[in-house]
Every structure is written in structure tokens, then in C-alpha cells.
């Protein structure tokens, strides 16, 4: 029935809304995790897990609600992003539930909590789509966003560090939050609004030097401020990932806004200098770098988590051990279900499964950038590319860290990894992208009847 409801909003001459495509994809996005869930149960106990019906219904309900909301409030939105997010979230729940079956792994029984967080994330998604009628409204809150982002970023400084990184806000009795995940979105709004206003000044008032357009000194101010901020995050909160994320995102948005390659070169120089400086000063970051260079080295006579993750990947091989049949629990520690969840993917689903997951992320990012290309207003373009870029950098930093491509940082894989803040924030991120894409793809309103035009035509011959 919902089919007809959706279709009625399309004018016969406009572009297809692709809502039915989305629905078909969503069916797969729900079925795949449900089968995966059954697979884990059959592999581990030989029975279909008891919670499967509830789990399947839960995931199906979430998917159904999101789909209906998109159909009603963002009918022209991109049809791929929602199914991809649902599939990743669903698979993440299965993987977490699978790791819950290993009694030694903390946090215990994480899957039900994660399902609850996912529901909250979907609620936020719905909220964004329902109440944010047009993304340009966000432009009004440019400087408020900056203030909020700064507060979110500095908040963890006042809380005790967890595993050497100060990225958590612990509220007794409620749980822990990672404000950085939310700051990611809020600060993108600020950057987009700020750059939209300043882009001409930044782009045109520059001197040419050795074939490069160098910005004026006074225009360097903002970029240096952001650079310092990300360095501060790195030093005070010892969070390499978030720091890289913000700085990288800012450089990307600056480049898109000004079309000046020199910004990228500046960005690369500054981030390299900053990273080298911090790595040499800060022991935590230094350890991580050392771990990255010698992943299999024993520490204090024990096998490191990094090495265990590498063993997981290697043991998975091409096709993996099958869900529920791997030994990624050997990674131990507290991050098996979050930071290291890709190791479980690699071991149990193999190279094939891991590549599929990475491709899903890649597809999500490219759909986001496609949205930026299609957007008609500069703020929308900047916001979309900022969010997609941040997403891409986060994927790269996390997956690259876990697989040993770059030093490991304390960030989580969006949607897949256990962690409430991450899943909630990323559902909101997808909602904003869908909103921009809906605005971008919506057919222009039919021109109003204009008697003048007709008159002219009559006169012309």
C-alpha cells in the first residue's frame, strides 16, 4: 500500500524518485543480516538462535520506518544510502552479537544495547528528516555550530582518559559518550557556513609564487586556527584519529570552496609537521607508531592486540572461517567489538567479505559526493562534501589502522562497530545527506502560468 502512497507524490513528467528501488534494496539489507544471524547460531550451537525472530522484526521495523519517512519527507533522496546504512548497521549488530557469545569479551551482552542505540539513531534520523525541511536552514546557525563544536570537543578533557585517550564523557549511571562523533557533524555545518561566506576572499586575494597561489597572511588565520585546534585535540586528548579527521575535512572543504590546490599542499605540510611533532613528543602516539612499524613484535613477552588483529586477518584468508567459527576473541582487551570489529569481519567473512564491506563504505561515500555534485547551492555542496569526506577519512583511518596500513587510532567503524555515539551520529549524518540529496534531485517547481510569455509568442511571428 505504501507503494501507491509514495508514487502519488510524483508528477508524471518529473524524474523518477527511485523509492521502489530503495525498498527492494532495503529488503536485501534486512534479509542479509537475518541470514547472517542464523548462520552464527547454526555454526556455534547447531540451532537457529532464539532471538532471531525478534532481531529480524526489530531490524525490519527500523528499516520500514526509515523507508516510510524518506518516502514521505524526502521522496527524491538518493536511493542507495539508506539501504547501505541499514545493511552495515544490521551486519554490525550480528557481529557484535556473535562476539557476545564469547564469554570473555567486554562489554558483556553488547548487542541488545547496540540495537537500542540503533533505534535511537533511527529516531534521530527520522527527526532530522521530519523537522529539517531544508538543509539551508542550518546555514543560519554557522557560529552557534562553532561554539557547540568547541564545547563538544573540549568536554572530554574534564573526564578521565579511557585506554590512554581522552575522547569519552562519562555520565555515571547512564554510560559513556564520545562527543567527537557529534562534533564531526556540527563542525561541518560551521565550516560549510563559514567557507561559503569567505570563499571569494580566500580564493581571489592571493599572490602567485612559484606557480602556486599563496593565500594572504590574514586569510591564513582560520586554517592555522583549525590546525592548532586539531593539534590541541591530539596533544590533550591524545586522539590521533579525530585530529586527522577534522583537519583533513577542513582542508577538503577549503579546497572545494576556493578551488585552490595550494590549500591542499598547505594542509598536507601542516598535518605532516604536526603529526611528526606529536609522535615524537607524545609517548602514547609514539607507541602506536612503533606498533604499526613492527606489528608482530612481542611486548612484555605477550602478543599485542595489533598482532592478534593481523593474525585474525591472515587466518581468515580468502573466504574466511565462516561466521561464529573464528578466533578473533584472541584479540581480547575491550575493543574487539568496537575498534577491532573489522578483524572479525576479516577472519570470519574472509577477504571477500571484508572487500564487500569496504566497497559498501566506498559506495556510501561516493553517493555522498554525488549528492554534493548535484546540489544546487554552495552551502549544500560544501556540507555534503564535508560530511562525505569526513566519513571517507574516518573509514580510511579506522580500517587502515586495524589492517596496519597506518598507525592505529581510537576511532570506530561507522555503523559496524559497537558504540552508541557513533551509530547515533552517523544515522544523523546520513539523514542530512539524504535531505541535501532530496533538495538537489527534486524537480524544479513547474513555472507558474505567465500570461506575458504567451503574449510575446503571439506577437513574434
Amino acid at each position, binding site marked *: 500500500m505504501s507503494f501507491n502512497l509514495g508514487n502519488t507524490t510524483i508528477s508524471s513528467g518529473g524524474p523518477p524518485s527511485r523509492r521502489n528501488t530503495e525498498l527492494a534494496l532495503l529488503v536485501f539489507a534486512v534479509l542479509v543480516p537475518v541470514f547472517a544471524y542464523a548462520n552464527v547460531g547454526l555454526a556455534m550451537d547447531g540451532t537457529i538462535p532464539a532471538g532471531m525472530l525478534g532481531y529480524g522484526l526489530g531490524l525490519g521495523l527500523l528499516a520500514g520506518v526509515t523507508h516510510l519517512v524518506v518516502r514521505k519527507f524526502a521522496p527524491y533522496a538518493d536511493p542507495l544510502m539508506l539501504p547501505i546504512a541499514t545493511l552495515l548497521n544490521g551486519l554490525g549488530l550480528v557481529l557484535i552479537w556473535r562476539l557476545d557469545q564469547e564469554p570473555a569479551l567486554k562489554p558483556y551482552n553488547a548487542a541488545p544495547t547496540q540495537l537500542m542505540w540503533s533505534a535511537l539513531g533511527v529516531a534521530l534520523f527520522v527527526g532530522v528528516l521530519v523537522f529539517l525541511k531544508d538543509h539551508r536552514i542550518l546555514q543560519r546557525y554557522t557560529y552557534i555550530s562553532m561554539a557547540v563544536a568547541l564545547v563538544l570537543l573540549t568536554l572530554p578533557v574534564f573526564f578521565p582518559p579511557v585506554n590512554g585517550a581522552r575522547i569519552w564523557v562519562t555520565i555515571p549511571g547512564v554510560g559513556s559518550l564520545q562527543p567527537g562523533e557529534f562534533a564531526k557533524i556540527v563542525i561541518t555545518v560551521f565550516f560549510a557556513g563559514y567557507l561559503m561566506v569567505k570563499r571569494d576572499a580566500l580564493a581571489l586575494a592571493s599572490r602567485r609564487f612559484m606557480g602556486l597561489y599563496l593565500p594572504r597572511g590574514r586569510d591564513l588565520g582560520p586554517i592555522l586556527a583549525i590546525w592548532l585546534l586539531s593539534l590541541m585535540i591530539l596533544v590533550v586528548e591524545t586522539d590521533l584519529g579525530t585530529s586527522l579527521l577534522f583537519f583533513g575535512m577542513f582542508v577538503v572543504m577549503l579546497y572545494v570552496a576556493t*578551488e585552490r590546490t595550494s590549500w591542499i599542499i598547505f594542509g598536507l605540510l601542516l598535518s605532516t609537521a604536526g603529526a611528526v611533532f606529536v609522535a615524537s613528543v607524545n609517548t602514547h602516539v609514539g607507541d602506536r607508531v612503533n606498533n604499526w612499524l613492527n606489528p608482530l613484535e612481542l611486548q612484555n613477552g605477550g*602478543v599485542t592486540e595489533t598482532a592478534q588483529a593481523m*593474525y585474525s586477518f591472515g*587466518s581468515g584468508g580468502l573466504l574466511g572461517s565462516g561466521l561464529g567459527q573464528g578466533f578473533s576473541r584472541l584479540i581480547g582487551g575491550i575493543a574487539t567489538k568496537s575498534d577491532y570489529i573489522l578483524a572479525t569481519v*576479516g577472519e570470519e567473512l*574472509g577477504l571477500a567479505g571484508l572487500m564487500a564491506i569496504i566497497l559498501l563504505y*566506498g559506495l556510501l561515500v561516493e553517493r555522498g559526493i554525488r549528492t554534493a555534485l548535484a546540489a544546487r547551492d554552495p552551502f549544500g555542496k560544501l556540507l555534503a562534501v564535508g560530511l562525505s*569526506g569526513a566519513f571517507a577519512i574516518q573509514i580510511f583511518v579506522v*580500517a587502515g589502522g586495524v*589492517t596496519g596500513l597506518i598507525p592505529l587510532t581510537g576511532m570506530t567503524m561507522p555503523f559496524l562497530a559497537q558504540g552508541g555515539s557513533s551509530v547515533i551520529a552517523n544515522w544523523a549524518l546520513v539523514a542530512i545527506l539524504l535531505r541535501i540529496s532530496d533538495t538537489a534531485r527534486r524537480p524544479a517547481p513547474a513555472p507558474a502560468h505567465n500570461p506575458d510569455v504567451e503574449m510575446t509568442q503571439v506577437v513574434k511571428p
Partner: protein
Amino acid sequence: MNKPLRRVAIFCGLLIMALMVRVNWVQFVQAEDLKNHEGNRRVAIERYAHPRGNIIVEGKSITGSAETSGSDFAYKRTYKNGPMWAPITGRASQAYGGTQLEEIYDTILTGNDDRLFFNRTIDMLTGKPREGGNVVTTLNNAAQQAAFKGLEGKKGAVAALDPQTGAILALASTPSYDPSKVAGNSKDDEKNWVELNKDDDDPTLNRALRQTYAPGSTFKVVTAAAALESGKYDVDKKTGIESPLKLPQSSTMLGNDKINPLCDKATLRRAMELSCNATFAGISDDVGNKGMIEQADKFGFNEEVFTPVRGVASVYPEDNRPQNAMAGIGQASNRATPLQMAMVTAAIANDGKLMKPYMVDRLEGPRSTVEQFQPEEIGEAVSAPNAKKLQDMMESVVERGTGSTARIDGVKVGGKTGTAQRGEENKDNPYAWFISYAKDDNGSPVAVAVVVEDSEAARGDISGGGLAAPIAVDVMKAILDGKR
């Protein structure tokens, strides 16, 4: 703004591409290395995830598997009569790794071998638990019992071969250890392991294969073989070598304390019966270092042997004239493992043909034989006529000479005693050696070498004939009784 946007799209694509390349590198190129890396616990978990296949002696398994709890290993290795069989089985320990047959045929025993692929597939399809294969040995239970019992309370080793095939019948080493006690990864296992490694007597050492000893007078059969092969000497021809003999380039006189007159210019047979030092040192000097090395090599010296458990190389090195002369009586820089001396005896008993010693008859999968091993000939150590002459002399040793304790009623036994002196001024207890074979109408079914390294017996009592020969006799009898 669209031009930079497209570039950003390409940049993000490159990030994803870099991840793809990386995961392919890790999960495809490096996968094998990481999978089998020493730090990867999965290797051990997989190894003990199913009951291991067994090592079989005469149709009965000498190993087993027990379910364990409290660790991520599902099964633990157990051994029946562990200390006796340890020189064969080695160990498969959850905490301390594997050795010997357990390690060499690990993939067969765990069922992971490529040749068991179809078995695994069938088991997987029919839902049966994984089954390991068995390693069927050539060993003889009674002979091994006799050897181990004979060595009880002593430090030494026994190696017994079937001369006609090279099959190892007994391989004992004492003091030994029970691999069951270090098979798990519990606190007890750790305690036992620490104790084992503290033990000065080194119970985990496989003396039959891995320890080389001065061969003493038993080496005289090799020297005699070199003498006959040179064509200059014959069994009942006078050697013309004086006793005592002045060693070349030296003023040292070498002889035998009380029987020098008997050894003086004796025949080869007489010299063998009496174990005359001067005669064989003289022959060794006459044949020369090169000739002696050649003959020793033909018996298998100077080369590692894989049974398939590795046996260290026995040595007969290049040396100067006086040392070479002393090596002719096994008292210089030449060294031999008990297995090597058993090979020498076996080659002589087998009319000169040296067979490759082996202890695994076949590898059995759960459904069929995976690999059947066949006897292999290494080469001709001595010509058949000369081998017969050597047999003749060794049988004289038992009938009339120093090896009289090795006589067995109704069977021809050939042997040679040895007492290798040790330490400066001979102050350490000597090694008591005995090598022998038994022979009936169908050829020789057993050749054995026994060494007793250290003994609480008084020095005077130590001689190959007194300490080592009775053990050799028991081992031979065990084989002969089994034949009847």
C-alpha cells in the same frame, strides 16, 4: 565548485582503493605467514581441537587423547608407557610444542594433511567430527620392553634394527621422561617442564639418535672391514703387527695390558676375539685416514640420518696419523650414535648391504592408507664375501672371545664388545658398548647396539661384555621369540 568536487571524489576513491590493496596484501599475500606464525594461537588451538590420531606399535596405539577443560584446547595428548616410548613419539605439548614423530607427522595426526583433504570434505559433509590419521611404526613391543627394562636405573641407549629392511625394532634411551606430564598447559605441566629442564641427566635427550659416543672397541669391526676391503689382510692370515705397538710420530706404546703376547702379530680373527688394540691401530694406520673415512662413510658415518626422526651425524674426521691410528680402536676423535653402530652391525649381518633405518611403516588416514614406506638400500658397505668374513669373526668373538655373555642357545650370534675410556687420565666411568646380531637360516632378523653411559658399578666391572651384552641378548631374544 564541481571540478574540485570531482577531484575529491577521486581522492576518496583512492583512499578506498588503498584499503582494498592493503586488505589483499594482508589476507592474500601475507595470509599463509600470518596464519602459521609462531605467535598465532590458532595453530595450537586447531592442533588440539580434535582428538589426535595415534601412533601405533604392532596394532596397538601407544598414545591417546583426553578431553580437557579450562582452556581453549579441547583435547590433550596422553601416552601409554610414556618414558619407554618417548624416544619414538616425542611429545605433542599444548604449551611446549611438538617433537619427533608427533611433530613430523603433525598434519597427519591432526587430519590437516593435504592428502586427507577428501576425508575432511566427507567428514564435513556428513557432519562427522574431524578425525586424525594414524602413524604406524615398525617397532617391536617386546624388544622395546626388553631394551627399556635392561637400561633401567642406568644411563644409556639401545637401537635395534632389522638388518634386511632397516626397520627400527627398538629405540630406547634412559633416563627418559613421560611426555604426558608436559602435554597440557596447566600449572602442573609447567612445574614438570621446569623440573625436566633442570635435570642434569637431560631426560628429554634421545640418546639413541642424538648423542654421539666414542665407539671404543666396537669400532674395530669397521677397521676390520677396511682391512678386508683393502685386500691386504685376511681373516686367518697373520697381520704381522706387533703388540705393543709404537704409535706413529709418537713415543706412546699401545697394547693390551695382560695379553700382549697373544696379540703380537696375531691373525685378524684372533685380534678380534681378544680385542687387540695394537693390531687394529696398526691396520688403521696402514689403511690411512682417507681409506678409513671412506669405509666409515660407507657404513653411514659423517651424515645425518632421517628415520624420519633426525639422527645426528656420527663422525670419522680427517686427522693426523697418531689420532687416525687411535681412531681405528674407537678412542680418538671419531664418534658414533647407538643407531650408527646398529647400522654397522646390520650391514655386516645383511651380507654387506646397508639398509636405511626407518621407524614408520605407513601413514593411515581414517579410511585408507595415505602412504606406505618401503625399505631403501643406502649402498654396499662391504662386499658380500668380506661381510661373510666379518660375520665369521664376530661369531668367533661370541663363541670364544670377549663376547661370550651374548651366546644364545640354538642361534648364531655375532658380536663385539667395547669399553670406551673417557676423561683425562681415564678418570670418568667408561662407556660400555655391545653390538651384536642374531642369525638363523633365513638370514639375520635383528642387529642391536647397546651403550651404557655411566654406571654405579665399580670400574673394574665395566666392560661391554658385562654390562651391555645382557641387554643386547634380551632384545635379540625378544625378536627371536616373536619369530617362532
